[in-house]
């Protein structure tokens, strides 16, 4: 705790500094990112215009990079709510400094993930047919389909985490409002919904916050479980497995935490927030990455064990092929990135070395993307009928959309850090010495 050493009165100034007039570097980056979003739009428009055939998908591989991206981004979207809700309930103090950034990342990751169900369907303009509501067409949806469960799981997760996120923002918006002038003042006044920091409001606020944290907690576990059932409920060898729900949740936390670290390391140094985001925070997050890495590694082994134990020809075959067949390279890449690369994190020195930590988390991000790719693609290529086997290579459209999805994600993140405090002012204040305490007075003198 000794690293946390900042005076109470600096907090507002330091954190709200991120909202100041953007630098040239920021604008250049943002322009690049917007261009990337343009790539996404162009690729998607091409696909709508000509058909799904512009993607590399084929028969028998009906799902490829799009669903990989979907699961990847949903996974990224796990860390935020985990940190803000579960760790809040456990009163883990190290969450206070990082949860806002992580939570915003969650929202934007889910917003990115939500693109993919629309992008990947053959008739994207009819995606709303997947939503059950009484309509004059007298059409209804199939509640037996895991894809429909997805619709519910992801939309519930998105609405609850957005509300949770917005509620957490209110006191901070009020803090901005107090310093803002002109039009900004008006807007922030509106957004702060009459927050005056009275004890009365705080009492209700804390109760409500706790309530939402409790509500969001099961969703962290449920959403990726449901996503995993897209695969587990099917009878595709390599998908049909009961281990998928915990395996996917662990993987999601793994990739989510890694992404938080990946983003916060440069963020911390660019905005000079070293006082608030300390090695201690990163140490804690790295431990969580390490823990989930071992769970994921264990799951890989379990899958192989089950395949062998089942003695099912199809199951045994697909797991053999996954490691030594056409898609061996992504497989071993996944093993390296997710199981081997995080091993140095056992050392405290490594956890405190930001360069190494940054590199490891990049590996984890890559590895987790390929994990989903492996599960989806290698299982579909070689199913029951050998005559119907076939390989899949992504096309430029899928690559473009994947690239564009990263840009879309960072676009929101970049805009967010310029308009809202990306560290929770009020909760960081909880960590500092109160302004009227003796210690704080002494420091002020």
């Amino acid at each position, binding site marked *: 705790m000794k690293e946390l050493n900042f005076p109470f009165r600096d907090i507002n100034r330091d954190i709200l500094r991120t909202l100041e007039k953007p630098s040239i570097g920021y604008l250049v980056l943002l322009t690049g990112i917007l261009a990337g979003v343009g790539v996404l739009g162009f690729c998607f428009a091409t696909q709508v215009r000509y*058909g799904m055939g512009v993607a590399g998908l084929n028969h028998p591989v009906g799902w490829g990079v799009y669903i990989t991206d979907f699961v990847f981004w949903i996974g990224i979207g796990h860390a935020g709510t985990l940190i803000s809700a579960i760790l809040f309930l456990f009163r883990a103090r190290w969450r206070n400094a990082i949860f806002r950034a992580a939570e915003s990342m969650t929202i934007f990751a889910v917003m990115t993930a939500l693109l993919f169900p629309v992008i990947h369907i*053959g*008739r994207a303009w009819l995606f709303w047919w997947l939503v059950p509501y009484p309509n004059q067409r007298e059409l209804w949806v199939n509640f037996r389909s895991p894809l429909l469960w997805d619709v519910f799981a992801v939309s519930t997760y998105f609405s609850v985490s957005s509300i949770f996120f917005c509620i957490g923002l209110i006191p901070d918006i009020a803090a901005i409002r107090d310093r803002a002038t002109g039009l900004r003042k008006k807007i922030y006044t509106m957004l702060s919904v009459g927050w005056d920091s009275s004890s009365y409001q705080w009492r209700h606020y804390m109760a409500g916050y706790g309530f939402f944290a409790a509500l969001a907690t099961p969703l962290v576990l449920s959403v990726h479980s449901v996503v995993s059932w897209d695969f587990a409920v099917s009878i595709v060898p390599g998908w049909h497995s009961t281990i998928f729900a915990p395996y996917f949740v662990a993987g999601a936390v793994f990739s989510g935490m890694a992404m938080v670290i990946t983003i916060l390391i440069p963020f911390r140094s660019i905005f000079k927030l070293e006082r608030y985001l300390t090695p201690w925070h990163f140490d804690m997050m790295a431990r969580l990455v390490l823990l989930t890495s071992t769970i994921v590694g264990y799951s890989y082994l379990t899958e192989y064990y089950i395949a062998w134990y089942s003695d099912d*020809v199809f199951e045994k075959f697909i797991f053999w092929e996954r490691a030594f067949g056409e898609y061996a390279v992504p497989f071993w890449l996944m093993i390296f990135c997710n199981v081997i690369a995080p091993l140095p994190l056992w050392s405290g020195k490594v956890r405190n070395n930001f360069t190494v930590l940054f590199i490891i988390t990049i590996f984890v991000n890559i590895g987790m993307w390929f994990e989903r790719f492996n599960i989806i693609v290698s299982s579909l290529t070689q199913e029951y*009928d*050998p*005559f119907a086997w*076939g390989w899949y290579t992504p096309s430029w459209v899928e690559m473009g959309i994947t690239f564009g999805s990263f840009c879309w994600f960072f676009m929101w993140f970049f805009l967010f850090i310029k308009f809202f405090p990306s560290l929770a002012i009020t909760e960081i204040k909880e960590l500092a010495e109160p302004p009227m305490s003796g210690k704080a007075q002494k420091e002020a003198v």
Partner: protein
Amino acid sequence: MLREKLTENKGKNISALTGPVTGAVESLWTRFVGDMGSGQLVRYEPYSQAYMVKASELAFGQAAVPKVSLKGADLVCSLGAQFLETWGDVTALAREYAELRTVDHGKRGVHHQFEAKMSMTGASADKVHHAKPGSETLLALALLKEVAAASSHLSAEEKAMVNGMAGVSLADAATATGLKADDLKGVADALAHAKSAVVLPAEALILGDEVIRHHVAVLLLNKALGGIGKHYNYTASKPLERVPGHKPVLDLVAAMNNGQVDVLFIKDANPAYALPPSVGFADALGKVGLSVAFASNLNETSGIADLVIPVHHDLEAWGQVDTYQGLSMLQQPVMTPRWEMKQAEDQLIDLLNDVNSAAIEGNFQAYLKAEWVARHGGNWRDDLKKGGRFEMAESGENLSISGNLPAGYFSDVAAVSAGDHPLVLVDSARFGDGSTANRDWLHELPDTMTGVAWDSWLEVSSHYGHEQGLHNGDMVELSANGQSVKVPVFLCQTTSDKVMTLATGLGQTHLAPRHNRGVNAFTFLNGKLNDAELFSAGPMNAKISKTGEKVKMATFHLPGRGDQANTALSLYEGHDHQYTRDLHQTVAAASLGHGGGHGGGGHHEEMDPNSWFPIHTDKDFYPDRTDTKVYTDREETFYDTYKWELAIDLNKCTGCGSCVTACYAENNIPVVGKDQIVKGREMAWLRINRYLAFADDGHGGHGDVKVGMLPMMCQQCANAPCESVCPSLATYHTKSGLNAMVYNRCVGTRYCSNNCSYKVRRFNWFSFEYEGDQNWQMNPEVTVRSKGVMEKCTFCSHRIRVAGDLAKDKGGIIQDGDVQTACQQACPSHAITFGNYSDKNSEVYKVAHDERAYRALDSHIHTKPGVSYLKRVVLEEEHHG
């Protein structure tokens, strides 16, 4: 202008070049050239059976092509004839062949095939003998010697005569063919002991200058086996005048070159494509005063004619086709003419009337009727209704060997040697003489043995290909006979090292751009006529050299990247049998007749471990719950009057692919083209799965290869994996047992296809547009799908609907046989049965309860498919462990 020219040239040489026209069509053309001047009618077809006429004349004094039939045979031994694809009357032969394979009291007919490149016909055989090309005549003579010695069907005189001529020993034949003498002895014994054996000749195209002698030998062999009259029927034969050879067309070209032909009419013949290049037809055509082509599409010949007169397509025209004696068929239009034009014969009548004042009354329809009535009497309407006269003699006379054969007729027969890896041209069931190369459906249909669509390829054995460092799709320069072409190679595991093959029929230059592909194998034909006065090739010394170029080949066997190895199975050489995974099952003939089978319910039967495709003995991951009450009860209550099911007899299926194309035609399935097939996006609702199994040769290599064909379409599972995962309820189970597909409701998640264990669902990756006249090929009963929706086989549900409506009008229900699926209708060997499984008396119910019946994958994943397969019956002595 044509009329002026004709008037100008009246009385001069006005000739005509047509396809093998017969009957009233021929008589009109003959009259036309006769009346107009001094020209003549020349008929030409690239694949002519004229050799059979000459051979028959020598052997039996009959200048005719016999009707060959396998009816009643218990052994068929083909020395190379691809009688299920290209040789003879393939549809009839396939039907008779299916009968031959039918098991009766643990026995069925046997099929030996001699060929270096395993054809689809060979794939059906019990034993393929990879004989070196060029040895066919020696082989026939050696067999003749063995069989004649023990024959009871030859008179003493005949026996002496045959013995005197056939001086080739089995050992000689073994050397020439590269086979074991014991194997040949085995075949000869089998022939001698068979109740009714048929020997079929080799494909004429590869016989070079030995065509006549080979066929004489084969005819004598059949005589010795007692098959003349029974299997080679000369009473119902094609007379000489119906099988034009190639000499007339060569004479015509000579006349053209000499400037003797003033006007040449061409119809239904494409000599500029199919004649050997050294004949120089194109140049000769330039020397004709005026060349006029009647055509419904441009090809290499009509494309260079001076004048092209568009005429009706055969579907819009009248005609007559006479083949065997007693078989005379009428052709009447099946559609209103699409454009305002006439059929070629109407044009002829007009020209005769205008230029020659012939005063023929009425059009060709009237002319045809008059001719028909004059020949067959007054019942024109009846004949038209029936489609013609079908009065062929069932069997013929057992002719004796004629005295025309000189004593030393076979004395100097020798094997044709053309190096270790000769090039051989083969006929193609899809393209043959090239006249069908403008058809998308045929291009899209993969070659059964290689799975290649939309291309020509040089087929070499995998072994030889690897030795030469070749890979699939490597462009090579192929030179033989002084000609050379660039063609991609395809490494094939079913072909032997003894040969390289190139199929005829592609390589056009004047069709639509997408149809001008591949190489023209006729380029390699000799410019000289052979002994049967035909252009032929024979085994050729060929040289191949790599060009360094590489093309992607569209092969169905492992799509995705298009340049994969031959099949998925070949990636795991030595372990192939594991990879059929019970989908294709076989059973030994002798083990039949003791009950068993899945009883119609989907039981998994332990198989004979000695069959070609041994099952794994691993325990099932999914317990068989077929008899669990909750399942059986559900089935009984769920289905109402109908539960539609299909059954396919794998013992009859030859893998020809007729059903596949029938399905394209019936269901408006889009043709996606080569680029999309390379990516694995063909749309076929029904495909032929082809599996290979290799016997161990004892030296770590391959022995015999066995081929399994499995038509695979939507299995209409009762526990369908696809139904439960569709989020928008676009696919669901109907009360009549169909796995219905509502295109309008589909948003295209493709989850159903991922979850389909049989991979029979097809996704519309694009909207496939039909332009102009292409819309005429659409079946109005079936929706044309657009991009983004899933589609698949629903057992021709539109036909079921029509039959249901008709039955309702009569106040009943659909009876067995009222509905036929398109694939069932097209199957030449009647391997497919369709009907209502709820009706215990239906054919499909009976077939599903056959002891050979099984349901694919059902024992593993309990999908309860609505399609039963009957195991292919193998012979005991053919077992591979």
